[in-house]
């Protein structure tokens, strides 16, 4: 099946990529149009390009604040869940404990449950603990999403590390924890990093908890913040498209830099080797 590609193939490829990217292209082209043209014409290119929409997007709502909030919450979530998950993944794939199937099954089940099913108790809990409108108020529920994901992906990376390395470390007198810290963890570093990217993206994108728990405008995360650009009576498409472009850029950069790793992480969950 693996064969060289012809011209027809590249034409197909260009069309495919164009279709996938079309919404972004159109949103970008709209964001540099003057207000009037957005509502009056469907011309692709405007003759009077302007950055007014960008200025307006940053003025009407605290967009950079939203991005900072998302960044802090996603980073904290990633750090916590990676630390906890790597212990578990190591124990499940490497150490002689019982009930491994049960533990992985529990993790898998936890990754499948719908967020709406835990929303109201978690909301009550976060409210009682006085954590509404804080970073911690989101980090705690985000662990529900990220921890099962991280354990599941990390375990596929850990299992690939040759057992021989570990055994020789053991012969040299290393304790199991030393083996984990000095041998396995560094060797698994690429896998850990991949997992971290996926967890980060998942936390960055979360909407439901962020919508209900951090309702104060100053504490909103980016997905929620963007969805509130729309007011009840007017839809400021200029602002919205500009804001969308601004928040999309970090993601495009992330994906361009780490596409190989992201693919490795995504497919490790589904492909048997």
């Amino acid at each position, binding site marked *: *099946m693996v*064969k*060289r*590609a012809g011209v027809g*193939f590249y034409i197909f490829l260009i069309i*495919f990529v164009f279709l*996938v*990217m079309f*919404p*972004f292209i159109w949103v970008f082209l709209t964001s540099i149009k003057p207000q009037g043209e957005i*509502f009056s014409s*469907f011309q692709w290119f405007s003759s009077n390009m302007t950055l007014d929409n960008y200025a307006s997007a940053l003025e009407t709502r605290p967009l950079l604040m939203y991005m900072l909030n998302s960044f802090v919450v996603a980073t904290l979530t990633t750090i916590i869940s990676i630390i906890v998950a790597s*212990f*578990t993944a190591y*124990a499940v794939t490497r*150490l*002689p404990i019982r009930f491994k*199937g049960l*533990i992985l*099954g529990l993790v*898998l089940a936890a990754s499948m*449950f*719908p*967020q*709406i*099913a*835990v929303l*109201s*108790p978690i909301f009550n809990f976060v409210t009682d603990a006085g954590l509404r409108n804080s970073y911690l108020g989101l980090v705690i529920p985000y*662990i529900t999403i990220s*921890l*099962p994901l991280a*354990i599941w992906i990390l375990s*596929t990376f850990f*299992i690939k590390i040759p057992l021989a390395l570990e055994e020789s470390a053991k012969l040299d*007198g290393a*304790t*199991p924890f030393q083996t984990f810290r000095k041998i396995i963890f560094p060797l698994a570093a690429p896998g850990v990093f991949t997992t971290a990217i996926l967890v980060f993206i998942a936390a960055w*994108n979360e*909407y439901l908890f962020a919508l*209900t728990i951090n309702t104060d405008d100053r504490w909103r995360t*980016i*997905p929620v913040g*963007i*969805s509130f650009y*729309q007011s009840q009576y007017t839809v400021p*498409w200029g602002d*919205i498209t500009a804001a*969308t472009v601004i*928040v*999309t850029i970090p*993601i495009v950069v992330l*994906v361009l830099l780490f*596409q190989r790793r992201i693919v490795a992480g*995504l497919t490790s*969950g*589904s*492909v*048997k*080797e």
Partner: protein
Amino acid sequence: MKQPKKRRFQLSERQLGYAMVAPSIILIAVIIIWPIMLSAWNSLFDYRLNDPAKAERISSLSINLETYADNRYLVYDTMEDVREAMPDAGGALDDITTALDEQHETLLNTDEGLADRYEEVNTMLENFQPVNDEELRLTEVPEEWADGFANTLDEQTAAVQALREGAPEEAVQPLTDLESQLSNTQGSILEPNFVGLKNYTTYLGDGRTWTAMLNTLLFTVVTVGVELAIGLAVALLINRVFIGRGLVRAAVLVPWAIPTAVAAMMWTFLFDGQSGIMAHYMAQFGLIDDPGALLSTGAGGMFSIMFADIWKTTPYMALLLLAGLQTIPRSLYEAAEVDGANKFQQFISITLPMIRSAILVAVLFRALDAFRVFDLIYVLTGGGPANSTESISVYAYKLLFEQQNFGAGSALSVIVFLSVALLSTIFIKLIGSDLFSGRLKQ
């Protein structure tokens, strides 16, 4: 031989293993399993945050000491105002005080330690501290007392009304306040709101729930089906060596990595009847009657959310399947070629069986994601027009947070949970061994 050195205390491998697993298991139990059980428990109550008498789960007739103490203070305070404005009402007010005090004494005697707890709550209120401890705030009360208390309040309210007839003008406002405070005091008695399975029977008998359920199922089946078909086609086409692979991969990953809410916002713009280019072109090509039809009709709304989801997820599906395709050894195809199998036969008898598990896993995760769809619909159509695109999660969210009906909302979220559990059980029966192989050290 190594020198036997002094060993510090350390765990055996097995103990270390359990210690390493423990934090995850505890976290999962505390923030997933326990909340799900609480949701199930909440769903058995008529539990509404916006109704003070139902804002807690009460399984037996109780008194809310916080509101009771609060109102008691207000009642006595207002009576002072009345006394000042209307000196000749002294006698009537003394009667009210006596009657309320009598009830108060009886209440404090119904339960040992109640007087202390009342004192504690009262002190907290005086210091402007919220009473968050349910044990302290809520106390069961006997039914006779509650009835007597209600009667007394009614009588005293009537007495206040009588006083207001012919009261001097400056006393009217305090008297009106006093009247409403007396009836508020009645609100500190909480009727049990345990309703058993009533939330379930009500909402399972409700058309809107079933519409939401059917919408969710339709959305899941159509999007996952289309995503699988197109994703497989794309994966087969790009499963070859070509220039610019990394770039294509990145382009494909961007829609997947964008927050769903942001993607939904973009599509709201593209589908918009006035300035949306998708709506514009679809109307021009005669696919829809007028550009507004996409977001203002039920069918148009359904099409919109499905289209947006398919756009966002098909590339990701293609990627997963591509990874599966790349694990197939080329020699299999070469052998098939020698045996004279054509491309289609090769696809049916080599490709499909070889990527079976990749397909099943991809479909499982996608189907579960699609079934609990929330943000895409909530941002893109808000469930409208006329609830025609409402998914079961969106409906549950609206009950929970827009109507503040925690009982009914929890019942629906338990229904979503059970459906997802059923769906995953079926899938895992099909692919269980494939999922776990390669993840465990036997």
